[in-house]
């Protein structure tokens, strides 16, 4: 019954899918009933708090916790010594959640306490004495790559080089992707432009700080409530760090107040568990905003060289990029994704992208919406724009001329299946926005973006209740309305109204393993699994109907929510609705459930084209966004309102990245803006309406043609806005954010 890509016909006519139904969690969220990470308490609960390094790089010579332990109300103090040996694949996470020999960045956790009140916990933190030997530090990516740079990890030797290095380095790994003869391609060009770009680190900026409540008994069993993008990941990592059986730890995902990739790892959860184990009390840990900014994953800051050759007619003859991403104090930046995505929008004969994964004295980077791709697209799309301007070519025509299309060989290896890039470009070209007049000091920017989209491990349970309603259990936290989209797909497949299906996020003990909510995978993969689970239930209900009618199951079909005889030969039987069959379930064999466990493939890549108009104030350097239109392929928009929401939200995060947001480090290696006042994300008065145009080019890998939509929308804005500002200012911008001082400098005003 499971969907088979290439064999099943894609469904393109729908009753529920494609409609704007009310979201199932809406009422809870508008009345304050919804329970997020910090909203739950337990009897006897203690407050956990974490002490963090004030130094960017320091050896920890000793930690004296005796005075903290003596504070009235303190029940536990933990340091790295409380975390025993663990498997290699979580070593860096162990090191990141609690520093061992060295503190590697300003904000790195070094100790934690649990006390009966927050006041007692705060007092205890002040009494922990850490003896640091301050070491030289480095926070800039280019500086960190120099042979003379302070070395963070003496055991780190660069991987991916032709020769095995003899000295340790801050360069963790070199990657290379591409095909064809790049130098020969450059020679065929009429114009080659090479530029170097720099982007600053930005934070996902979810409004809900990390929060959890751990409750661990002396028998080693524990319950953990937390806001996360993947509670199965939390179970896996925390049980490994604490030496527990995975099944001894049950993790429940709370409502999640934004993540954007930043909640795909653990920070406080293992610490809360260790405190709970030591105190034999439930322990709640809630980060402050400054802890979120200092110690949880921002993006990489980057330095990127791009060289592109173009003929006078707009044909791109070759593309070449070198991307340097610092990913904080541990290897694993998103530079491979950046290098793979850099030229993905172009069908090129000769292309190369080299990436360097670099470590520096900053918090360990975490995924942020299409991780690694926005910076790469910024650099490539800026050079393409400059080539278009210098050769006097229309930027959309040039992109249409070179665009990847069905069957194109992607710059990172595989051949594309059915893709929608061209459709987004054509829609942009035809849109009134592209023809609207611009005034002095205004500019229009165009850019395209790509994201891979993930599938992954997914387990779903669909339970038919006796009254004919459906309980649908999924294991992927709902970060932007996925309970609505998944529930609606199950309703569509079963042929019942959407409000007969209630979709919940089940805990780790109640379902098989699920990968985290990432890679825009949930509406695609969990949706696919829900459809398969519905088909499994339909199969079982058809057996029940066949039994009731006394005919073979092959003679039963399922249509519009009811079992029907498939032909007159099967006999004359009134249809049995889902509710009819459910009501008789006890008498016909017991409860009815559908299941699906898959490692979903065929996610279907995603493309978008963005148009933006900006106005640059030549006196202040302030950039105003005047108009913004997103064109993105959704495959099939299951719930158009939330698809638009993804387009709009991603575009606005990109606007923040382009214009305001940056991690500012002082000479001392300390983060200077760890708060929302100085780390300024866009507010309502900064913005116009964001027009969202949904394009639907069906993904052959999903029964309804669905593609993930969550991430691609943050890929084009950096370049689109930079191109618009460059046009308005008459000077090419090569650094983000384009804050007023940078714009004034580019204009020669300061």
């Amino acid at each position: 019954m499971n969907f088979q890509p290439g064999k099943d016909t894609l469904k393109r006519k729908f009753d529920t899918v494609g409609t704007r139904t009310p979201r199932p969690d809406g009422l809870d969220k508008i009345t304050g009933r919804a329970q997020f990470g910090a909203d739950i308490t337990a009897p006897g609960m203690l407050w956990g708090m974490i002490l963090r390094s004030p130094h960017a790089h320091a050896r920890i010579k000793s930690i004296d916790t005796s005075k903290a332990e003596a504070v009235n109300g303190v029940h536990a103090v933990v340091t790295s010594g409380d975390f025993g040996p663990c498997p290699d694949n979580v070593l860096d996470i162990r090191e990141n959640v609690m520093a061992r020999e060295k503190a590697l960045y300003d904000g790195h956790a070094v100790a934690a306490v649990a006390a009966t009140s927050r006041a007692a916990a705060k007092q205890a933190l002040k009494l922990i004495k850490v003896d640091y030997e301050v070491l030289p530090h480095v926070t800039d990516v280019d500086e960190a790559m120099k042979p003379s740079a302070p070395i963070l990890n003496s055991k780190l030797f660069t991987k991916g080089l032709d020769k095995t290095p003899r000295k340790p380095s801050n360069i963790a790994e070199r990657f290379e992707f591409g095909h064809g003869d790049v130098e020969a391609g450059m020679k065929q060009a009429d114009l080659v432009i090479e530029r170097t770009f720099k982007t600053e680190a930005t934070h996902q900026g979810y409004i809900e700080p990390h929060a959890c409540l751990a409750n661990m008994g002396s028998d080693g069993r524990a319950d953990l409530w937390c806001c996360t993008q993947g509670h199965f990941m939390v179970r896996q990592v925390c049980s490994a760090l604490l030496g527990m059986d995975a099944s001894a730890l049950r993790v429940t995902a709370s409502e999640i107040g934004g993540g954007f990739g930043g909640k795909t790892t653990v920070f406080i959860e293992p610490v809360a568990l260790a405190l709970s184990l030591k105190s034999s009390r439930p322990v709640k840990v809630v980060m402050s905003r400054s802890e979120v900014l200092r110690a949880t994953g921002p993006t990489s800051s980057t330095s990127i060289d791009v060289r592109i050759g173009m003929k006078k007619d707009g044909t791109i003859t070759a593309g070449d990029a070198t991307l340097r991403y610092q990913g904080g104090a541990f290897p694993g930046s998103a530079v491979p994704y950046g290098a793979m995505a850099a030229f993905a929008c172009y069908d090129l004969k000769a292309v190369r992208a080299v990436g360097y994964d670099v470590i520096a004295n900053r918090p360990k980077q975490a995924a942020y919406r299409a991780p690694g791709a926005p910076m790469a697209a910024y650099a490539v799309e800026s050079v393409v724009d400059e080539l278009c301007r210098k050769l006097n070519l229309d930027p959309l025509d040039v992109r249409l001329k070179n665009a990847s299309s069905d069957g194109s060989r992607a710059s990172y290896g595989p051949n594309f299946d059915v893709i929608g890039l061209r459709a987004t470009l054509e829609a942009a070209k035809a849109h009134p926005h592209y023809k609207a007049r611009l005034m002095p000091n205004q500019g229009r920017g165009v850019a395209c973006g790509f994201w891979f989209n993930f599938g992954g491990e997914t387990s779903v349970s669909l339970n038919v209740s006796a009254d004919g309603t459906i309980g649908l259990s999924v294991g992927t936290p709902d970060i932007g309305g996925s309970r609505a989209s998944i529930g609606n797909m199950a309703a569509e497949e079963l042929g019942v109204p959407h409000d007969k299906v209630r979709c919940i996020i089940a805990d780790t003990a109640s379902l098989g393993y699920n990968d985290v909510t990432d890679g825009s995978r949930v509406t695609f993969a969990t949706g696919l699994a829900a459809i398969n689970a519905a088909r499994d239930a339909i199969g079982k209900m058809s057996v029940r109907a066949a039994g009731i009618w006394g005919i073979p199951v092959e003679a039963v079909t399922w249509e519009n929510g009811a079992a029907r005889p498939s032909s007159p030969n099967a006999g004359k039987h009134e249809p049995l609705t889902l509710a009819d069959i459910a009501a008789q379930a006890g008498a016909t064999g017991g409860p009815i459930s559908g299941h699906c466990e898959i490692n979903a493939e065929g996610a279907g890549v995603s493309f978008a084209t963005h148009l933006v108009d900006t106005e640059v104030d030549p006196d202040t350097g302030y950039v105003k966004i005047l108009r913004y239109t997103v064109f993105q392929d959704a495959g099939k928009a299951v719930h158009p309102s939330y698809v638009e929401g993804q387009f709009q939200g991603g575009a606005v995060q990109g606007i923040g990245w382009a214009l305001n947001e940056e991690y500012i480090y002082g000479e001392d290696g300390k983060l200077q803006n760890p708060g929302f006042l100085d780390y300024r994300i866009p507010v309502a008065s900064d913005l116009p309406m964001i027009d969202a145009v949904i394009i639907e080019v069906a993904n052959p890998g999903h029964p309804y043609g669905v593609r993930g939509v969550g991430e691609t929308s943050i890929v084009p804005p950096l370049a689109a806005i930079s191109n618009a500002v460059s046009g308005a200012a008459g000077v090419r911008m090569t650094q983000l954010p384009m804050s007023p001082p940078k714009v004034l400098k580019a204009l020669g005003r300061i």
Partner: protein
Amino acid sequence: MFQIHVSTSINGDDTEFSCEADESLLDVLRDRLGLTGSKEGCGTGDCGACSVIVDGRLICSCLMLGAEAQGREIETIEGMADGSQLHPLQQKFLDHAALQCGICTPGFLIAAKSLLERNDNPTEEEVRYWLAGNLCRCTGYDKIVRAVLDTARDMRKPPESRKSAPKKRVRA
């Protein structure tokens, strides 16, 4: 530690609590009174997730001391609906899909209510500037602004002609 005894009114209910002198109203609401609908996004008055109305004035409850609630009238998100009857803003937020993760939603609703109590016919710009103290990272504000403008439009109509936004059945 010495605690202060406070008598106040929350969503029309007479309420008494004791709190420490340095405890914020937000901590009192969340940790002492179980009113967790008000959220802490920053603790420094920058995000508006903890917005409440005190004696008719919109404030960040993380910036007010619990002890200052003495004798005041406080409105929180938990009191916005009248029983099962949603406030028009709440209904419009649902109709316009003006929320994604929902963590900022209580603050936006309280802030928007405070706006409409002062100005029943705000321009888009007025809505955007009034809500500039509330951060949302998911929506890009588009649907929030539309929901507030639509609520204002509806609330200006005579009561009998008010209705929820038409349920769009959109097909591609």
